[in-house]
């Protein structure tokens, strides 16, 4: 039994390896980024944010500090996604109703009333083998905008800002090089 199973595993592994190689070739040669998106467009819910949250209104117009909501950026690896209760701090019933999109605020209140988290679509994510400590970067005086772009001028966030360099390693390194920060592998990879 083990030998037969092993043989099959090898066959599967072999076919997989060839597929992956070809797949890499395909990605490399791909011209239009819309191709992959085209596949996903079948599920519109997967694309958009559950609530049309305007960063420009909050951070731009009302000058709310980023860390008012992303509350752990200066002391943790994670910047922190605001608890629904943070939204309700301003948007509780009868308070800030929202001039432009009252129906979006109603959604927030619904989530809160049901005791459910808001399932935000994640835009920024480094790979699992990368550790990005927000607090080190905040402590070094890096503005949030350096990586996340001019968020205070953006509406609903649906894609990464061009400043983020697609979060590729070369982009990290170029900044570390510029600022004389460590380029040792184990600063991020462990």
């Amino acid at each position, binding site marked *: 039994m083990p030998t037969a199973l092993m043989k099959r595993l090898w066959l599967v592994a072999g076919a997989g390896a060839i*597929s992956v*190689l070809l797949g890499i070739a395909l990605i490399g040669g791909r011209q239009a980024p819309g191709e992959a998106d085209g596949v996903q467009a079948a599920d519109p819910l997967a694309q958009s944010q559950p609530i049309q949250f305007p960063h420009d209104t909050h951070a731009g117009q009302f000058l709310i500090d980023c860390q008012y909501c992303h509350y752990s950026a200066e002391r943790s690896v994670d910047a922190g996604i605001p608890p629904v209760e943070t939204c309700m701090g301003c948007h509780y019933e009868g308070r800030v109703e929202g001039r432009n999109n009252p129906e979006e605020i109603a959604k927030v209140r619904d989530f809160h009333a049901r005791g459910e988290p808001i399932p935000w679509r994640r835009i920024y994510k480094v790979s*699992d083998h990368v550790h990005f*400590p927000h607090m080190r970067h905040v402590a070094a005086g890096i503005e949030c905008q350096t990586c996340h772009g001019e968020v205070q001028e953006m509406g609903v966030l649906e894609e990464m800002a061009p400043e983020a360099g697609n979060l590729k390693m070369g982009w990290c390194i170029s900044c570390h090089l510029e600022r004389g920060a460590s380029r*040792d*592998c*184990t600063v991020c990879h462990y």
Partner: protein
Amino acid sequence: MSGGFERRDFLKVLGVGGAGAALTGCSTDEVERLMPYVTAPEEITPGVATWYASTCGECASGCGVRVRTREGRVVMVEGNPDHPVSGGGLCSRGVSALQGLYNADRIATPLRAGADGFEAIGWDEALELLANRLGGGGRSLFLTGRKGPTESVLLNDFVEAVGGRRVVHDGLDDSALRAAVSIAFGVNALPRYEMAGARYLVSFGADFLETWLSPVRFAADFAGMHGVGGGAKGRFVFVGPRLSLTGQNADEWIPARPGSETAIALAVAGELVRRGGDAGPYNDFVSGYSLEDAAAAAGVETEALSSLADHFAEGGALALGPGLAGNHRAATAANLAVLILNAAAGSLGDTLHIDDAPDGEASSYGNLASAVAQMRAGSFGVAVVAGTNPAYSLPAAAGFGDAFGAVPFKVAFATTLDETASMADLVLPDAHPLESWGDSRPAPGTYAVRQPAMRPVPLFDSRPMADVLLETGQRLGHDFGAATFRDYLRGAFDRWLAEDGMRAGLAGDPNRLWRTALRTGSVSHVDLSDKITALQPPVTAVDFDAPDVVGGGMEGDSGLTLLVYPSSRFGDGTHANRPWLQELPDPVSKVMWHSWVEMNPATAERLGLRQGDIVSVATAEGSVDVPVWAYPGIREDAVAIAMGAGHTDYGQFATGKGVNPMALLPGDMDGASGALSLLTAGVTITATGAWQRLVTNEGSSDQDDRNVAPAIALSALGHAPEEEEHAQGEHGQLRELQEMGGFRPVDTEGRAEDFPLPGSDFGQYDRDQPRWAMAMDLDKCTGCSACVTACQAENNIPWVHEHQAAIGREMHWLRLERYYETVDASHSGPVDIRFLPMLCQHCNNAPCEPVCPVFAAYHTPDGLNAQAYNRCVGTRYCANNCPYKVRVFNWYRYTQDPADGGNIPEPMNWQFNPDVTVRNNGVMEKCTFCVQRIREAQNRAAVEGREVRDGEIHTACQSVCPADVITFGNIRDHDSQVAARAGDERTYRVLDALINTQPAVHYLKKVTHHDVEDAGH
């Protein structure tokens, strides 16, 4: 491409596969959701660990733990340095609590036995059923494990309210010791040993570094007493037929016959009395015993015993034991004999204290046997089993299964189904200690609290037994004064403060003290207990000269005695369902996953057996088939098998692994205490003709001439020859790679702090870097292997299962090497067994680095030998070139779910440390010096605008070591602890002098009382 398959079609097929790979392989195309809290818990910052102080619930010792949680999920358990008993250490079983919490075999809902096996029911229905049966189903029997003091009070009150009987059962039984203390001092208490204050320690078989009473505490005390300090070092003698791990730590071994410890202890006490010692009411009695008779009875030399007497006469001595090794048909007499010896040696009130305060609960086989008889007689309508597994852990001869099966309604509180719970009519999923409230009183005047470190794992609808009792009580109309056990416990704390605490000036606001207990794990006050300092005349007759303590005896007697001993990994079997512990090489035999029978190589030769031969070990009660492991540390007339393995129904990790030696025991007991006898004579060994390769990580038990673990004699300390001072510089000219190829000589003495050398500075590194290094004091290392399990827990190291481990693919980053120098069971004399925790040495001149074709193995500017997983392509050149064999390779997808071909089923992967990358197949990995902890400390220090403090970083292995073996820090800082230890005269680095690897791990040689051949390196 024949057979009509066109090349274009082939490419099309592959193209489709390729697109699929592109979509699944590129994670940025997938939609991931960020789920915020609705209301953020105050104590949780995302990405920052929250720690809780609590009490370990894995055995009755009650060690203090610190539980690390991330985003509300428990990820690590470490020792709590503030705890008055365990003092910062923990054992492998304690660390494995994580795998009890997240065990894939945990029961998800209450279960009711139906015609087709168990069916899931809701809690309401289950509680209704329980209340009905307890209220009107006849008399009830409660068989429980040992519980914390407050839970025990509740349980006893509950049992009284419903009119039942409670019997405590723990396979690691202390009833004979309690019975002996009760006879000698008139109090039901365990003695308190102040080992740290002793200069001479004798264990009559007690495995105090493994399972006996409080092994973590004992390991710390033993390190203090036996580790060299100020040019002095205590001496430890082990008396008994088999060297347990504890025995392997001894300086001298008196290989006495099984069951002869009573005669030896009484004879030595008699000798002391003759020399003026005082054994109070026993003076005349012990004078009747002579060393010569005892030596003859024990099969050892009289000189060895008179040497014992000489050392005892000098004072500062302590006799321990005999523990479970003395659990035979005269167990109480054996325990009493050792207490008498302590009294005669003047240890009472010096190194041995008896508190005049009853503590704990006796658990005896005798009580259980009487309950079994009552069950068989139909005296009980309901039997409740909680926290114990008698269907497995009792000898078959006890007849538990049939008797229990005959009870009309059987209830089990259990976290996973085991042999007993599987027989129940109603199974109630119990909460794990890490999810529960509780307490312990580890010493008079100390209150330690257990608090839940997380909400119950949501996959399992479990409830703590104590809460179920309170609710059932309400349904039956019994009021225990609280609705939840948390409130009940809080009330008990206030009462403890009022009765005990306040008396000692532990005054103040109870709420504040409670918060202190929650924050630090315990509150203590000065010890108030009245100490008993004299033996009292025996009130019960004790037969010291039982004609046959061993029992057994059958046709064709082979002259062999079978010793069944508790496993340091599984205890009495409770921990066998933890894959970490199954794959932890047994500290004595280094065998994983299966059982073995220990026999002396001479016995094996006499019987014509080789290592790995599968033999049938038979007694009148039954037989088991088990491979032979030849062990020079056991007498020729004894064979031994560990408890804890051979489960028939205990989840996917324990069932069918190894054999259960309880099947071989006749179930006879010590009359005075009811302790189960764990020895039996008349065992026969028959070869079956089959052989198996032992699943072991032991390469060799002999160092040959490599001097991996050298030692130095105590008398040679401080007299190191001149050249030894420069042992580090013994290698030839150090050369290093240069940028354009080839080597160039470097001007250095090779000190760790000289690295990295200028020539290796290819990147634009900041020169002002620390140099991380470790120092390990081998004189303190007991080989307990807690570090191995802690490393596995911290670093997401998978287990590989038996068949992969058998071919050497186990993934441990840290292993405990064990070398025999002097072990001889044929006569009394010195014993010298060396332990060496072997991990990546983080060589400054690392052989693994230059052979990596992709720079995955490389040196960091702060001196770590790093492995960049995402660079590694799996050539394995590095492992082949590593002289320490510390690099391990992911041959398969061990870390994945079994559905994906891996080993780690949901939710055991919930334990993964989010700060460490989970490696997949094809990747080489190894010890990182816990780089995630280094970076965390550096991040914290940078945010706070300071340097990392010395001692701020504790590696995982260090954070559980009970014996303070491991020191970690920046060796370039000359004031650091690690620099101080590395500068010790005992310091050496493994293989450095031979192959010039310049390791960052500094070992301090073991110190022996006897002369050793090679004190140098």
